[in-house]
């Protein structure tokens, strides 16, 4: 029962390319949505469950991407080794940052993570010798998994969907574990949690590292999938987009975050045709969701559906 939603998601992810083979909106947009789901689900652990804000999450995404890009192009690392190096560096960075940063609360935490994101972005732009500067790095080799080259959109779709499902499954399990309960206690009241015998500093550090690892993993995949990285993909507006995904979908719900990520990706893709009015419609929609569905799209819509269903039943 606990994993019903997960199986449903897996079924949809698996069926879509069969029902609409070669459709741009499934294979290409689906890949982008899948990556965003991994990022949002990871960030949701931090924001939704532990109640800690991060406005610099794109930095970890970027660290994963640049680790893969730099190590494979400049040092001819095999992709999986580069990916591991990205995970390790992002994890260590998050671990080192967690203690000083997560002692802050509210606005101060927001400022600190914001600053961290900007610093990483500046390094990407300025350290031209390593990162290729504002023009970025090209020529990132294909991802090869045990002799199987991921060289088409279809293959990428399956790799990203599998990773996405893994991320969702991990998050669901984490949330239902001892750590997950500790995190919710921290969000409720950090002081209270400490009184219950929870090592809050440790719990917060753990979740910060886990969510950085999710982001770095997505970053590595992103670098190989695009074949190109540049600082633009990891700037402040991306960090904010990630927070929007979490909030839009509904905080403290893994499916909510996933739903928010998919919704925002599709929204962006769908609004492109409106050209000049894109940002206007985008902003208006976000405002409308926050005003009318303050618990987020996922929770709001599923409650609405339930209410509608009972109404229908009663009428009959």
């Amino acid at each position: 029962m606990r994993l019903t939603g997960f199986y449903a998601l897996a079924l949809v992810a698996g069926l879509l390319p069969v029902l609409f083979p070669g459709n741009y909106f499934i294979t290409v947009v689906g890949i982008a949505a899948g990556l965003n789901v991994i990022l949002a689900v990871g960030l949701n652990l931090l924001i939704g469950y532990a109640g800690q804000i991060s406005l610099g999450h794109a930095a970890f995404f970027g660290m994963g991407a640049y680790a893969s890009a730099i190590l494979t192009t400049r040092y001819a690392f095999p992709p999986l080794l580069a990916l591991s190096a990205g995970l390790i560096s992002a994890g260590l960075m998050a671990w080192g940052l967690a203690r000083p940063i997560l002692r802050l609360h509210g606005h101060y935490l927001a400022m600190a993570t914001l600053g961290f994101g900007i610093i990483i972005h500046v390094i990407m732009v300025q350290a031209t010798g390593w990162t290729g500067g504002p023009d970025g790095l090209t020529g990132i080799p294909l991802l090869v998994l045990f002799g199987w080259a991921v060289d088409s959109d279809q293959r990428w779709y399956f790799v990203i969907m599998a990773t996405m499902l893994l991320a969702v499954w991990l998050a669901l399990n984490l949330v239902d574990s001892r750590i997950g309960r500790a995190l919710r206690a921290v969000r409720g009241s950090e002081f209270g949690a400490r009184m219950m015998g929870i090592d809050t500093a440790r719990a917060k550090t753990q979740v910060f590292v886990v969510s950085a690892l999710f982001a770095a993993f997505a970053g590595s995949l992103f670098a190989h999938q695009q074949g190109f990285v540049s600082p633009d993909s990891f700037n402040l507006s991306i960090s904010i987009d990630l927070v929007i995904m979490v909030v839009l979908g509904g905080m403290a719900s893994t499916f909510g975050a996933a739903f928010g990520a998919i919704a925002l990706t599709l929204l962006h893709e769908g609004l492109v045709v409106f050209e000049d009015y894109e940002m206007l419609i985008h902003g208006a929609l976000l405002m409308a969701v926050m005003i009318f569905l303050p618990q987020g799209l996922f929770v709001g819509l599923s409650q609405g559906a339930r209410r509608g269903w009972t109404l229908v039943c009663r009428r009959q």
Partner: protein
Amino acid sequence: MNKQPWKIIVAAILLSTGLNSAQAADPIKIGSFLTVTGPASFLGDPELKTLQLYVESINAGGGINGRPVELIHYDTGGKAQDAVGFVKRLIKNDNVDLIVGGTTSGDTLAAIPEVEKEGIPLVSLAGAVDIVEPVKKWVFKVAHSDRMAAAKIFEDLRKRKLTKVALITGDGGFDKSGREQLLKLAPEYGITIVADESYGNKDTDITAQLTKIRATDAQAIINFGFGQTPAIVTKNIKQLGIKLPVYQSHGVASKTFIDLAGDAAEGVRLPAAALVVAEQLPDSDPQKPVLLAYKKQYEAKYGPVSTFGGHAYDGLFIAVEAVKRAGGTDKAKVRDQIEKTKGFIGASGVFNMTPEDHMGLNLDAFKMVEIHNGGWKIVE
């Protein structure tokens, strides 16, 4: 009864799509991704207008080989990641036959892996040499490169017997790539760089860096950048009373720069496309009629031309001519024909592409101009 309207709508849609495909001759689909909004919009906006203008006039004249041209455009806003997404969309969703675009080097470089993988001709409107060096099978460019600009400036310095120069560049992609080329080429022209200062492209005062330059024995100042900051640099130079010759890049070859820098712009030299000085060209110049015609057609609809719109003109017509010669839109054939472009007289110069040179412009494509009484003057 309830479901009836749906059936009618579905039937209508099926019918109309069926009719459509039966009716019109298959259009030639040209895809484009430009930076029409955002900080580089002054580049992308005239480019898009030029494309729209000429696609319209090509269709009014009966299309290419009897087929109409359809332009499908997305605005990247200067975000490289979006550029990749749009290129994928153009190729996989819109099924375009070729792509003209990439306003900025960042956008183009981001799109190249996808273009190479899918095998579709791309004519970029951006500047960086990296786009065509090393040569990529499917990628061409029509805008002057930053290396040409650097070489042109150094050539002029050599003529004036100036050997010590100070560089001042911004932190954008265009600036950095230009700085790299200047540093790389300087020894070839026997020029020593005595100062290498930088500023942020959002800075509003550059006097600190210029004061440092004043303390060196530089004989000229080169400022490589685009947007508003080069105008601020030019003003600051005048305010500090520095009397050295000032060189700007082709990135500021627009009337806006002269307006922004005001009096301080007098005497500033820069390499620019012939378009800005079209009327002053000798009648023997083969480019003159092309430039004047473009200017007339563009200005009749949109107001003053910019050299960046000229790149779009070149990109579009090099592609169109290639489609004509290829006799269709077979991607490999069109690619081969673009590579065989010879003696094409465009807005940016005369193009002669080869398998080794996917740009095909030489240094003559740039004119060294000086700002004189608020206008441009050729100084060669």
